[in-house]
């Protein structure tokens, strides 16, 4: 390093700063400068790729950590006290001694922080040392380096299944089409493949790569600005995994902390639980109490001094032999008292709470009932400090798709050109699949299964046996293939579609009759199905291996493991093969594909072969040119499961999507002909438009065709002239018929989509295309402009048909909802689906009951909405005030659609809406946007002041999850975004039941009781010192050795409450699940209330009084000395506090006994040892041999016994009498718990049914809905009428 003038250094630094700050960054390739010293390189101002997420450095750990810790007010308070103790006039103890507790607390916390930081350091180091390939000019090839060596301006090669080390601009890929497939599961958890294009304009072959490297330089925008310009589709973000592409070369534009992944990586979120908020007010109460006590002390000292007639020998003057005036002494005494009773503010409270939560989370995550076998995932606790909120939930807001339902889409029915095709066979097959699959079947599938006759097909195009094997395969793959996440949505269930016979005939007729130039709407419909999507085609064989992610380093499965699992799988499938026979039939030509492609099974030989040759780096490219491409081994990866289901449906009818690249889509027609459509544009889905379109150029007709699919209301508004040319007779009815079918589908609970086609004229396309390009190139408002162009094109659509897709309910959803409702939790469903779909699902999952009164709110304008709200509210109010039906008010349900919801949530109607919703048993919000979801949650949370929980699985639930008090993500089919935003992540909806009813209840009662106990403990102990002040002239003297006081809090009595907070079990899990009503104890104010807090405070006062004054009376007028008097006090207090806890502990396990007895043993051992060792230490106390002497005195024991008994008698009696006279449900439950299981179940049932009757009692409206009422209040079964009204209103 040569010497450089400081001026030059400053100049360079400034320039570097400018280079980084500029909106556009000019980057040059590093290659020409290779070997130069760092300062001379053009990109030296940009940070390297090494990352550092640690908070501290080794040298600065102590000051930085202390600084962090002093952000906590309590710590400052305690240090302040310790410092106060160094001021001689007010010091209560030896100066240094007061520092001990705070030092212990600080060092404990520091130790924890250090461990955490060390873990971060280790993971950073591991990540920084991950190998990667960087191009070197000297070597003329890519050489192996580490991630940390990557710098901006380097050229990096990423091979298949490797993680991208930095944000790369894609320059070259091995794919002839210039695309690179990536999986972003490390970033957002989405497991589907995404395509990235090479930089446009830079087209290079392998040979010219080197030359290009030398001259390449590029401009990039600053990171983390929304507008990444046109580059996003050619940017490989750090953390993505390259898939299905042999290798890709990119130019590093952002490295290290400037990468998108790191910028987005914000620390853990911090939520404060309800309990903690309440706790803080109680801490303030304690401070007030402390100040009161200190004031009393100060005043008392002043008065006591005033009353002295002379100067007694025990008053000690200061160094000059001069006594302070009583008022000054009183003033000093105030501070002395603060030091003395400082532990009234529980110093270890916060640390203890953290420990308790860690323990609670340990038990939650270890619950085997919350473990999902299917995905082998446990419940994840992401927020560490709101476990107890789970026990206080009053409102649950649930997403529908993927949360209540499986989100495994099955194509059920379709309507083409106004004709319905019911797909009965398909329905029958699904019905068979619905038969719960027991475990024995999984085991039994090793043996040949006798053919079962459950159903048959007229066409005989597949035999039942085959189907059963498919079934088995499905089960099998679910069990075996779960560790490596399979291709996202290509589960066999949706792949299996049995074509409708009528439709098949229709298609074949259409095909034969019309030449390929004239396209029949039936063919168009299926083309639309196949083309209008963003499904990526990959080989079923290219099993993806999950490479370790940023944070999940433990999941790396070695190639050997995966290989062995493959072999195992093939082995288990071998049994099936002998029975695997094709029975070619005459008319099987079309459906054969659909049958065959459904198994992942290939001859075992093939699997072994691929395993041997290219191990797991099998990344085959799928282009139509490749001969290996057969429909059999295709697998589709879609962003949403609906798309995959539709593509599979199209395939079942012979329209096989073979390949998709950004430029073209290849579809094989039933005739065997491959059509390659040029994709001109894809108008992607968004929540505002609720549709997507693909603009293609037909290879034969050369027409520009726009295929659009979307929600029916989004499409119906855009219909232009119907498809007139071909079916002139029907055209008028098509829209009406289709709408009718759509309504039917919705009523069945199917998800509906409409398909349309539009032929765009050349001219129109030209002009639109210019606009589009402009919009895409725009820097400002880009998204808005792009959306506008999409809206421009999507007009005058002609309806082709509609599809109905089934999304089946998850298992035990109705039971879970019933249980949650019994637990006093209101369940709302917020969904983007149609009203009818949502209502239907509502009935299916017993959210709505047949006898419920369903209020359907849907209105077009605000005026209507206002009047409707008023009328309904009036009606409901009148109904609920009627004394005849007090108990039944709950059975009103509200269904509201997105548009009305927006109006209802506007500031002037908000109150009325909430008032109405409060009286409803359930609320279904349909067609809501993600933003509305979070708005609903926020409004309910704030207006009703209740604890809310939001549960969802998709990206559209993220805002709702974040808005709620507790956010729960379901790690389902739609990626991990919801999970990443959530506080807890579960894998099935049914887990919610145990999570809330059992763990929530436990966590809450445990922590609440622990907190109350904690406050009690400190007050009870400190007050001993306070009472002593009345007998020592308020001089701030202590009769207990200070070390023992510290030990008392830090060791003797600290572990039992923590154990109590982690392990106490008031009612068994079975009981809590069996009687969900028990959950209600935690709702609202719960157990930790103002009253319980002050009752325990009073108890603490009483107990301390007893603990002090009984020994005082016993030792009055005797020759007892100060610390000999203090020892039994300390011991009595110790036993009282421990036995108090014993009264509170509901279930004693071995751990409880060990810890309780251990604490007692610790107390005596430590105190005895301390008393034996400490001869002259720690003046002024003389602990030497005091406890030993006391323990030789029978009086000591007699005193301990009676005092403890007297102290605890009231609380004990209180418990006994309350439990006997007015037992709470919890006490009753605990009684039942003691019975033997069979009797208990019987009692549980009785209890539940007794309550249940009160809840589900049928009722009649006091007055039937008056016909004069303008609002469409309606009993639900007639909802078709309602929907008509809605439809009309929308169009007014």
């Amino acid at each position, binding site marked *: 390093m040569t010497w450089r003038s400081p001026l030059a250094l400053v100049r360079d630094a400034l320039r570097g700063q400018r280079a980084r700050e500029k909106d556009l960054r000019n980057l040059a390739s590093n290659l020409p400068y290779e070997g130069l010293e760092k300062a001379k390189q053009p990109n030296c101002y940009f940070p390297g790729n090494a990352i550092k997420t640690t908070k501290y450095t080794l040298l600065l750990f102590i000051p930085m950590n202390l600084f962090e810790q002093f952000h906590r007010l309590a710590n400052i308070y305690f240090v302040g006290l310790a410092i106060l103790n160094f001021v001689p006039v007010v010091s209560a103890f030896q100066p240094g001694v007061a520092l001990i507790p705070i030092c212990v607390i600080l060092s404990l916390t520091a130790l924890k922080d250090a461990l955490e930081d060390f873990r971060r350091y280790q993971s950073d180091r591991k990540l920084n040392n991950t190998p990667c390939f960087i191009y070197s000019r000297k070597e003329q090839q890519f050489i192996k380096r580490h991630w940390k060596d990557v710098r901006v301006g380097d050229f990096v090669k990423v091979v298949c299944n490797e993680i991208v080390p930095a944000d790369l601009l894609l320059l070259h890929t091995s794919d002839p089409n210039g695309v690179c497939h990536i999986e972003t599961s490390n970033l957002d958890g989405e497991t589907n493949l995404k395509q990235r294009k090479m930089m446009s304009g830079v087209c290079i072959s392998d040979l010219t790569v080197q030359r290009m490297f030398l001259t390449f330089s590029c401009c990039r925008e600053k990171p983390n600005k929304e507008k990444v310009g046109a580059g996003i589709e050619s940017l490989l973000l750090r953390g993505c995994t390259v898939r299905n592409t042999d290798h890709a070369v990119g130019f590093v534009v952002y490295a290290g902390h400037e990468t998108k992944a790191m910028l987005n990586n914000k620390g853990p979120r911090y939520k404060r639980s309800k309990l903690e908020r309440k706790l803080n007010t109680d801490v303030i109460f304690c401070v007030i109490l402390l100040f009161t006590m200190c004031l009393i002390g100060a005043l008392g000292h002043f008065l006591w001094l005033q009353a002295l007639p002379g*100067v007694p020998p025990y008053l000690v003057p200061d160094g000059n032999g001069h006594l302070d005036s009583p008022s000054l002494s009183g003033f000093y005494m105030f501070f*002395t008292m603060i030091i003395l009773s400082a532990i009234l503010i529980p110093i270890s409270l916060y640390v203890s709470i953290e420990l308790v939560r860690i323990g609670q989370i340990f038990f939650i995550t*270890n619950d085997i009932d919350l473990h999902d076998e299917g995905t*082998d995932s446990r419940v994840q606790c992401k927020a560490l400090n709101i476990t107890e909120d789970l026990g206080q939930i009053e409102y649950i807001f649930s997403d529908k798709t993927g949360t209540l339902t499986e989100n495994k889409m099955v194509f059920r029915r379709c309507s083409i050109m106004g004709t319905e095709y019911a797909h009965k066979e398909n329905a029958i097959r699904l019905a068979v699949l619905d038969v719960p699959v027991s475990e024995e079947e999984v085991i039994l599938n090793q043996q040949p299964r006798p053919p079962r006759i459950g159903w048959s097909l007229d066409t005989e195009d597949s035999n039942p046996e085959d189907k059963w094997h498919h079934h088995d395969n499905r089960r099998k793959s679910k069990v075996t293939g779960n560790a490596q996440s399979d291709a996202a949505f290509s589960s066999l269930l949706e792949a299996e579609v049995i074509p409708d016979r009528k439709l098949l005939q229709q298609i074949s007729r259409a095909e034969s009759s019309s030449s390929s130039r004239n396209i029949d709407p039936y063919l168009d419909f299926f083309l639309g199905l196949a083309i209008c999507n963003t499904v990526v085609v990959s080989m079923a064989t290219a099993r993806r291996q999950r490479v370790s992610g940023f944070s999940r380093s433990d999941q790396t499965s070695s190639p050997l493991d995966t290989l062995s699992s493959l072999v195992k799988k093939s082995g288990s499938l071998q049994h099936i093969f002998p029975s695997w026979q094709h029975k070619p039939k005459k008319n099987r030509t079309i459906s054969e594909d659909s049958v065959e492609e459904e198994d992942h099974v290939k001859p075992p030989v093939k699997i072994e072969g691929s395993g041997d040759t290219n191990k797991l780096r099998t990344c085959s490219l799928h282009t139509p040119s490749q001969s290996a491409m057969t429909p059999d081994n295709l697998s589709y990866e879609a962003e949403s499961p609906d798309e995959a289901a539709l593509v599979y449906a199209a395939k079942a009818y012979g329209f096989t999507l073979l390949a998709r690249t950004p430029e073209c889509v290849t579809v094989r027609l039933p005739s065997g002909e491959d059509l390659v459509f040029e994709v001109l544009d894809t108008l992607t889905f968004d929540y505002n438009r609720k549709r997507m379109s693909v603009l293609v150029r037909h290879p034969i007709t050369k027409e520009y065709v726009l295929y659009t699919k979307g929600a029916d209301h989004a499409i119906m508004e855009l219909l232009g002239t119907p498809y007139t040319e071909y079916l002139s007779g029907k055209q008028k009815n098509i829209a009406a018929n289709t709408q009718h079918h759509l309504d039917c589908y919705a009523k069945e609970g199917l998800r509906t989509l409409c398909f349309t086609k539009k032929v765009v004229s050349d001219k129109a396309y030209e002009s639109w295309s210019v606009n589009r390009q402009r919009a895409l190139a725009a820097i400002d408002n880009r998204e808005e402009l792009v959306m506008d162009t999409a809206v421009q094109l999507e007009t005058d659509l002609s309806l082709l048909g509609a599809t109905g897709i089934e999304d089946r309910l998850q298992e035990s959803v109705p039971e879970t909802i019933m249980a949650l409702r019994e637990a006093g939790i209101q369940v709302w469903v917020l969904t983007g689906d149609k009203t009818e779909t949502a209502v239907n699902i509502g009935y299916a999952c017993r959210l709505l009951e047949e006898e419920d009164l369903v209020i359907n709110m849907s209105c077009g304008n605000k005026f209507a909405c206002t009047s409707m709200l008023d009328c309904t509210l009036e009606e409901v109010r009148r109904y609920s005030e009627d004394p005849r039906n007090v108990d039944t008010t709950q059975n009103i349900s509200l269904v509201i659609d997105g548009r009305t919801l927006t109006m209802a949530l506007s500031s002037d109607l908000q109150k009325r809406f909430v008032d109405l919703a409060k009286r409803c048993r359930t609320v279904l919000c349909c067609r809501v946007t993600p933003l509305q979801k979070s708005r609903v949650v926020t409004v309910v949370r704030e207006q009703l002041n209740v604890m809310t929980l939001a549960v969802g699985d998709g990206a559209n639930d993220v805002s709702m999850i974040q808005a709620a008090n507790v956010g729960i993500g379901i790690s389902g089919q739609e990626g991990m975004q919801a999970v990443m935003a959530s506080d807890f992540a579960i894998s099935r909806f049914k887990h919610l039941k145990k999570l809330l009813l059992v763990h929530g209840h436990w966590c809450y009662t445990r922590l609440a009781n622990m907190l109350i106990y904690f406050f009690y403990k400190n007050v009870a102990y400190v007050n001993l010192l306070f009472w002593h002040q009345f007998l*020592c002239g308020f001089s701030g003297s202590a009769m207990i050795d200070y070390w023992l006081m510290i030990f008392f809090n830090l060791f003797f009595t600290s572990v039992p409450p923590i154990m109590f907070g982690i392990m106490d079990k008031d009612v068994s899990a079975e009981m809590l699940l069996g009687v969900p009503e028990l959950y209600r104890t935690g709702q609202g104010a719960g157990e930790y209330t103002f009253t319980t807090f002050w009752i325990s405070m009073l108890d603490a006062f009483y107990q301390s009084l007893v603990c002090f004054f009984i020994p005082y009376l016993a030792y009055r007028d005797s*020759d007892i000395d100060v610390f000999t008097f203090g020892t039994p006090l300390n011991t009595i207090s110790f036993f009282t506090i421990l036995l108090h806890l014993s009264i509170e502990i509901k279930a004693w396990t071995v751990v409880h006994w060990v810890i309780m007895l251990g604490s007692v043993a610790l107390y005596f051992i430590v105190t005895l040892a301390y008393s034996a060792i400490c001869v002259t230490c720690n003046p002024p106390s003389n602990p030497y041999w005091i406890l030993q002497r006391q323990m030789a005195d029978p009086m000591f024991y007699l005193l301990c016994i*009676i005092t403890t008994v007297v102290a605890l008698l009231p609380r004990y009696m209180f418990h006994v009498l309350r439990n006997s006279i007015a037992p709470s449900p919890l006490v009753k439950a605990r009684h039942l718990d003691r019975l033997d299981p069979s009797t208990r179940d019987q009692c549980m049932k009785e209890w539940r049914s007794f309550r249940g009757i009160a809840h589900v009692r049928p009722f009649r409206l006091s007055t039937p809905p008056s016909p004069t009422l303008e609002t469409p209040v309606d009993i639900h079964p007639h909802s078709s009428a309602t929907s008509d009204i809605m439809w009309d209103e929308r169009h007014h």
Partner: protein
Amino acid sequence: MVKEEQELANRPDNTAFTQQRLPAWQPMLSAGIVIPGFVLIGLAFIGIGVALFVTSRSIQVLELDYTGVGQNSPCYKCTYPNVSNCVCDLDFSIDSLFKGTVFFYYGLSNYFQNFRKYGVSKDDVQLSGDLTNFKSPSDTCSPYVYDSNNQPIVPCGSIANSMFNDTFQLFQKINGTKTLVPFDGKGIAWWTDYNIKYRNPSVTPLKNAFNSTVKPIFWSKPAYDLDISDPANNGFINQNFLVWMRRAALPNFRKLYGRIDEGVYAQGLPAGNYSLAIAYNYPVLSFDGRKKVVFSNVSWMGGKNEFLGIAYLVIGSLCILMSIVMLIVYAKFKFPEED
């Protein structure tokens, strides 16, 4: 099955501990169950209470205030200011034999030995015989560290300085002649204080250790002169000094002065007239204090204290009472499941 388990690597352990299914004892606090417990406790407590009460009753105590507040009090004359070396005789009579070994205490009222600053004011190291702390006593003794000539005070501090210095001699008056009833002052302090905690410097004669130090300001004689007759009761290990240094917990206290266990008096003080000669030195009226002497015999439970016995009796009967109450409660509110 084995294969399946291997593959479910994330599956939690199915143990009683992790699944929170440890066998547990669930005590129910309800009337039906605690009644027998309460009866037992009540009976036991009443038993203990009776024993304590009876024992306490058997203890004889004789308390005599000698502060001299009243005009007719024998020590009134000593309360005049500027009286020194005042001796007053306190006459009293005992009706029946005072059994025992009789313990003789002096008692002080309204005297706050538990005052914080007072309690701090001593130097334990010095009192354990460390000569360096003879020369420079600990700051905690302030302001009784050095005298006006900057000589270190040994023993320093307020506690030592304020040592009680009245002395007592008891005479039995038989037919007009006074017979001295000897006090045994040995072993009235804690064994550990006398043998371990407090040590004289190992200098002989002891006086030399106190060279260039001064006695506490209020003391009439230096520490090495406390009991010249017995070197084992001199200096820091003087029993009366040790007793005083062990600060009383409460403002009204008594401290042991001596036992009457010699000769004819070993069986107790016979009935008769006695006279206590008091060297009245210690001023208490300035802070409204009182002085007294106490004769008492002790039992296994220490001195006379009826409180504990009564407490046991009261609580014991309360327990019985509550068990009756709960019997009623139980009869009225018992659970249907329990029968």
